C-alpha cells in the first residue's frame, strides 16, 4: 500500500507539466514563456525548420511542397487558356485557392471551405496583387483574344499552425517552378497552337515572403505559432515583405492591440525571414536544375 502511494507521488512529481498541459494549456504555455522559451524548445523569435521540395507533381505545370515544422502545404499550378475580360484585354488571370481539407486536422469538417480557408484564399490573392509577384500582363498571349489563367491550388496536408506563411512559400516556389508551353496563333485558322515540348519559365518580379506572429497575454510576441499556440493566443499578425524591404501586407485580423515598437520588431523579423526563405528557394531550385 505504502509503495503504491510512493509511486503515485513519484509519477505526479515527475510529470507535472504533462498533466498541466491537458488541464490548463494556457498556464502551461505561460510557464514556458516566462522563461523565454516555448514547449517545443524554440526561442520566442525562432521559426521551425523549413524544408522545400520543388516539382514533385508531374501532372502540374509547377508544384512545390513546403514543410514548416509539422505544417505541410502543397501547391500545384495548372495553366489553362482562356479569353481575357473586356475591361482588361491585356491581362491574364491568377486564381489562388487555399483548401484546408478534413485530412489535415480534425478541426476541419468535410464540405465547402470554411471561413479560415476563405480568408486565407483572399489573403493570398491580395498578396499576389499587392506585391506584383507576377504581372498579369505577362500572361497575355494575344491582346483581347487569348491569355493564360494560372490556377494556383494550395492544399494543406498537415495543419500545425501558421498556414499563411507556408502557403506563401509554397506559392512562390511553385511559381518559380512553373514552365508554360509556347503558344503561337496560327495565321490560317487563327486558333492557338501549343508546343508542349518548348516551355519557358515565368518572370517572377518580386519575392514576397510572410512571417506570422502571435500575441500571448496582450504582450508577449512569438513567431511561427503552432496550432496550439494559435488557439491560445489573443491576436495574430502576418507581415509580408519583398526583397526591397517594402511591405506587401500587414494583416492583423483583429484581436488585442499591438504597440508601435512591437510592430517594428515584427517588421524587422519579417525582413530577415524574407532573406532566409529567398535563399532557401534559390538553393532548392539550383539543386533541382543541377540534378537534371
Amino acid at each position, binding site marked *: 500500500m505504502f509503495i503504491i502511494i510512493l509511486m503515485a507521488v513519484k509519477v505526479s512529481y515527475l510529470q507535472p507539466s504533462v498533466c498541466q498541459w491537458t488541464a490548463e494549456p494556457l498556464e502551461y504555455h505561460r510557464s514556458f514563456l516566462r522563461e523565454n522559451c516555448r514547449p517545443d524548445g524554440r526561442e520566442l523569435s525562432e521559426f521551425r525548420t523549413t524544408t522545400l521540395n520543388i516539382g514533385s507533381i508531374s501532372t502540374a505545370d509547377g508544384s512545390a511542397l513546403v514543410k514548416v515544422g509539422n505544417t505541410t502545404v502543397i501547391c500545384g499550378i495548372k495553366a489553362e*487558356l482562356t479569353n481575357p475580360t473586356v475591361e482588361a484585354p491585356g491581362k491574364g*488571370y491568377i*486564381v489562388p485557392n487555399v483548401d484546408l481539407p478534413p*485530412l489535415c486536422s*480534425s478541426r476541419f469538417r468535410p464540405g*465547402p471551405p470554411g471561413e479560415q480557408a476563405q480568408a486565407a484564399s483572399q489573403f493570398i490573392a491580395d498578396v499576389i496583387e499587392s506585391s506584383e509577384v507576377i504581372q498579369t500582363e505577362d500572361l497575355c498571349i494575344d491582346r483581347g483574344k487569348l491569355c493564360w489563367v494560372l490556377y494556383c491550388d494550395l*492544399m494543406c496536408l498537415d495543419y500545425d499552425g501558421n498556414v499563411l506563411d507556408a502557403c506563401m512559400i509554397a506559392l512562390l516556389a511553385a511559381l518559380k517552378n512553373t514552365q508554360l508551353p509556347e503558344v503561337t496563333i496560327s495565321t490560317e485558322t487563327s486558333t492557338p497552337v501549343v508546343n508542349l515540348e518548348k516551355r519557358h519559365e515565368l518572370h517572377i518580379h518580386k519575392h514576397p515572403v510572410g512571417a506570422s506572429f502571435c500575441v500571448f497575454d496582450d504582450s508577449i510576441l512569438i513567431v511561427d505559432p503552432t*496550432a496550439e499556440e494559435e488557439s491560445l493566443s489573443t491576436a495574430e499578425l502576418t507581415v509580408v515583405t519583398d526583397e526591397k524591404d517594402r511591405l506587401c501586407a500587414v494583416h492583423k485580423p483583429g484581436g488585442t492591440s499591438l504597440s508601435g515598437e512591437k510592430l517594428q520588431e515584427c517588421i524587422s523579423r519579417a525582413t530577415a525571414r524574407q532573406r532566409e526563405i529567398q535563399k532557401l528557394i534559390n538553393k532548392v531550385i539550383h539543386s533541382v536544375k543541377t540534378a537534371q
Partner: protein
Amino acid sequence: MPTDTKRVRGPEVSQSPSLFSDKPADVVPSRGPRADGRQREQVDVRPVFVRCGPVSQAKGSAYIEAGDTKVMCCVYGPRETERKDETDMKCGRLTTDMRFAPFSCPERGSWIQGSQEKDLSLMLQESLQSAVCLHKYPRSQIEVNVMVLENSGSVLAHAVTCASLALADAGIEMYDLVLGCSIRQDGASYVVDPSYAEENSRSSGGGGNQGGLTVAFLPSLNQISGLQSDGEMTQETLTAGVRTCIEGCYKLYPVIQQALTKAVRKAAPPPSES
C-alpha cells in the same frame, strides 16, 4: 449554373493547353513492352514507396507512392458519431472521403467533389469495412480521408492499401490488412498496375474482353473484401484477372509489413539490451 462563392473565382471557361497541341497525343501500344519498361502479361507492379505517420495531427496516417501515383491517407477517430439518429448503435461507423487534388490529373479537376470521387469513396468504404473490427467501437465513428496528390493510374487500389495502412497506424483493431491491386484487360493481353494513359486507352479493334478490375484482398486471411470491375470480360478472363490481382497483392505485402514494423519500432523502440 450556380457559382461557387466560397472560392476565388477565375474566368467562366478555360481550356487545357494540351487540347491545342500541335502533336497528337501518344497512342498507347497494345503489344510489346509498356511505356515505362514493364512487361505485359506479367505481375509487374510498379516499385512502391510507403511511409507511415507523415501527418502529425492525425491519429494515423500513411503515404504511398507507386510510380507517379501519390496517395495520402489520414485516419481520425474513433470519436463520437455525428449522426445520433442512427438506429444501430452496437457497432461503429466507418466513413470514407476520397478526393483528388485539382492538380492531380492531366486535366485540371474541380474543387467540388464529383461523382467519380463519390463512387470511389463508396468502393473504398466497402473494401475496408469488412476488415475493421467495427463491433469493438460502439457508438463511434472512424473517419478515413484519402487525398490523391497525383493520379498516375490504379488510384483505387493504392488508396485501399494506403487507407488500411493508416488504419493500422492509428491502432484501429483490424482482422487483417487490406491490399489493393488492379489490372487492365485489353483484348487478349493484360497489364498489371496500369498507368493513367493505359487506364484511359481504348484499343481500336479489340472487340470483347475490354475492362478494368480492382481487387481488395486480405492477405493473411486469403479473402477478398472488395472487387470492382468495369467493361466487358468473359468469365474465364475475370477469374484469371482476380488471380493475377491476388498475386500482385502478395508482391506488395512485404513492403507494407516493413513500413508498418518500422513505424511501430519508431513509436515504441524495443527496450535496449543494457
